[in-house]
């Protein structure tokens, strides 16, 4: 069952290229033939001479990045992009969400739909669509939102997972908060789930865990795609003897159990430079203990975890308002994915603790666990936790606050109005997100 990926904008395309690279390498290196075949089939089309072509479409409003991306893939010698799988224009979107959404989107809707259709037709069965984009720019965010809407209309029964890159707090783009607010508020209406990677978090991981001195976007993308790969590579989801055939669908049903809660974050352990990896030994109890505390204390990585934060004690009969513990991150749903040696022996009971979750959902529907005995991307043992929890509440609140402050002075609004987004549209978007913030706060 295949996944088609749509890469949008500079970020989406740069991350996408790294993503297929990781998938290809991981599948190729796997000793388990079934894993390798399943991985290949899911993300690539295999040609007559066993050459791999990614099931992907590249979209950008200016040509430089796409050219680079396609060239880089071809250079690897192991996989490539399809010959006519891309669409680009010349002018770019100028970091203007309105330009991406109201101008480029509708203008190029048919061409993009065509490209997607052609790629989907080459899948035996389509299991889901993955989009990759950033929130801060114009094409990924604006056009990406429009295209997601189109995809939803084209494939109403297919799961669509939006992977978004959350910009650095201290600005890459001045109007990034506007663009992010507009994107998130619109995506919320028709996306199945929004999986977030924050540049600041990934940057810290590169600096403190991977020990990289001069961090480039390449390094950042490698971490992001390591995380993504650990979720989407073949895995056993139920106690069946086959690799799951519907990874994205099952992903959605595990994590998004209520339409008001769609924001997903991800934690992965262990992470380190490849040189250190050679000398490290891990055991499941240690890894899982850290991961659990990372969830509870909302730590984004395994360094600097606050061990004083505890889950509140709650008895099942006490279904009133949940007690609020300082710093505690409450979850709606969690998905734990274990890969590597001795997975069967891993003790995951700690994640089934009802204290971690909201009281109005039974624990059985709140927690799921997947596993694969095949080591992933060079790590003998690795664990990923995808959460639908309050962990993005802080960043979201901060972003909306900054955008609102800027909106109060009406700065830059004329740039959006030029392309058809009015003050009313802004207000609507703010309202949607304040609602999301309120929902998550009250967990």
């Amino acid at each position, binding site marked *: 069952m295949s996944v088609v990926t749509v890469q949008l904008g500079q970020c989406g395309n740069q991350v996408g290229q790294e993503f297929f690279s990781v998938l290809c390498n991981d599948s190729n290196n796997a000793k388990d033939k079934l894993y390798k075949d399943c991985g290949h089939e899911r993300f690539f089309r295999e040609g007559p001479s066993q050459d791999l072509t990614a099931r992907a479409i590249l979209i950008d409003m*200016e040509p430089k990045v796409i050219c680079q991306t396609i060239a880089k893939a071809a250079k690897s010698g192991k996989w490539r992009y399809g010959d006519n799988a891309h669409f680009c224009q010349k002018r770019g979107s100028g970091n203007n969400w309105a330009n991406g959404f109201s101008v480029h989107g509708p203008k190029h809707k048919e061409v993009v739909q065509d490209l997607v259709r052609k790629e989907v037709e080459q899948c035996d069965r389509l299991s889901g669509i993955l989009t990759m984009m950033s929130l801060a720019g114009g094409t990924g965010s604006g056009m990406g939102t429009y295209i997601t809407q189109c995809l939803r209309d084209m494939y109403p029964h297919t799961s669509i997972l939006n992977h978004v890159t959350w910009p650095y707090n*201290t600005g890459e783009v001045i109007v990034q908060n506007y663009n992010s607010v507009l994107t998130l508020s619109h995506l919320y209406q028709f996306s199945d789930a929004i999986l977030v990677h924050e540049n600041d978090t990934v940057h810290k991981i590169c600096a403190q865990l991977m020990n990289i001195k001069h961090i480039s976007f390449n390094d950042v993308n490698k971490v992001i795609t390591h995380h993504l790969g650990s979720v989407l590579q073949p895995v056993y989801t139920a106690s069946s003897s086959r690799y799951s055939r519907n990874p994205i669908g099952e992903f959605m049903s595990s994590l998004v159990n209520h339409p008001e809660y769609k924001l997903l974050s991800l934690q992965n352990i262990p992470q380190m430079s490849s040189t250190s990896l050679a000398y490290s030994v891990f055991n499941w109890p240690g890894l899982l203990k850290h991961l659990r505390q990372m969830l509870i204390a909302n730590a984004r990585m395994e360094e600097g975890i606050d061990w004083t934060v505890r889950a509140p004690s709650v008895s099942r009969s006490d279904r009133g308002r949940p007690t609020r513990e300082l710093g505690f991150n409450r979850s709606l749903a969690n998905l734990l994915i274990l890969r590597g040696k001795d997975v069967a022996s891993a003790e995951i009971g700690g994640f089934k603790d009802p204290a971690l979750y909201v009281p109005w959902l039974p624990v059985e529907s709140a927690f799921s666990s997947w596993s694969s005995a095949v080591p992933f991307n060079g790590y003998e043992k690795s664990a990923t936790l995808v959460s639908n929890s309050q962990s993005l509440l802080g960043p979201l609140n901060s972003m909306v606050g900054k955008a609102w402050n800027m909106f109060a002075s009406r700065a830059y609004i004329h740039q959006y109005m030029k392309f058809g987004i009015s003050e009313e549209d802004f207000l609507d978007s703010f309202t949607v997100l304040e609602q999301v913030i309120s929902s998550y706060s009250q967990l």
Partner: protein
Amino acid sequence: MTQSIVVQVGQCGNQVGCRFWDLALREHAHVNKKGIYDEALSSFFRNVDTRRSDGGAAQITGGKISTLKARAVLVDMEEGVVNEILQGPLREVFDSTQLITDVSGSGNNWAVGHWTYGSTYREQIVEQVRRAAEHCDCLQCFFLIHSMGGGTGSGLGTYVLKLLEEEFPEVYRIVTSVYPSAEDDVITSPYNSILAMRELTEHADCVLPVENQSLVDIVNKIRHMSQSGKGGSVIKKDSTVISSKGGVSGVEKPFDAMNNIVANLLLNITSSARFEGSLNMDMNEITMNLVPFPRLHYLVPSLTPLYTLADVNIPTRRLDQMFSDAFSKDHQLIRADPKHSLYLACALMVRGNVQVSDLRRNIERLRPTLPFVSWNQEGWKTGLCSVPPVGHTHALLALANNTCVRPTFSELRERFSKLYRKKAHLHHYLQVEGMEQACFSEALSSLSSLIEEYSQLDATKGACMPDAPRLSIAT
């Protein structure tokens, strides 16, 4: 990939333009070793087969370079400067049809440049610009280069600006304006400047103001450094931002050093649009991010480094020094101190082997020292282009939308008022057909309200602005 057209008007505009084309050729020759006419080249040059009788439309990218022609229109109302260009080593780069000249000049009179020559040459100018535009696949931007103090650059230049807006409303207009210094020898330069300012405020998408005095100061600073030549700190001659070395033109003329700085500014601002990088910054992103309100589009440029030392060991300290320098008042291209005024927005365009972590580290380091307006506390727009300028391993262009332009404009208004109060030289302007007293008063009030807008923002500096109350949702 988009194309840009340079429109150079007047003596200053054409002299700066000339340096720009020379250095652009040098930059592309440095990067483009195979002689292929690539996308980067096509942003400023056409590839023409001069053997063909129609002047050739051999514009296929990917083919070998035949003859490069600049995407430019050269306008001057006296022939001296343009003739020099046509006889100089850059003559191959321009088609005779791209030049629009007259004989007698504008006599440092904005009204003559704007109204007299404007109406006379309007059709010709539109025709030439249209031809240049037709040669473009996707025209994104006009770069207008002119000075404010004279008659042609200032008067006819701003007429052309208006014309570009009318005929090509979708294409961005980025204007590089050279402002006169207080000791300028043209007596009427304040009149010319204020009359031109109004047009810039109303018709330009963004303006890069440059002051002659700042350019002089930078040139002197570099000359001083290269002459004092302390052991171990010898400057690489072709690496300075004022150097013409490696370009087509051989002999250095006066003003060349100053003009090279402005030429480098234009090369750096377009570098990310032409060359690849991990975080591209196109021209439309500049106008989007740096212009929060339509009239406040004056962006103070600063270039670093001014030179590269011959010492090859360049520690990270030098990189950080480059960022610090970008905010020092010695590197600004107008005489202003942005650090002590209020930032509305700031763009950092980095070229060369610099990674995102270096960028972030420096932003975090410098941020607390720079006052930003309350609603844009993290107002940074950043770009990373992998290709450094000739002679450097890395370079930084900072563009600041900062209230420090207010004193510059106020001073200009002062000089204007001194003359206007006495009605000095007014009759030279008013006797030109199309010119009225109202033009003066309107221009003055336009400038005053611009200064007032900046003042109001300035007043918020340092004041602790409360956050706007958020929307409350019914739960």
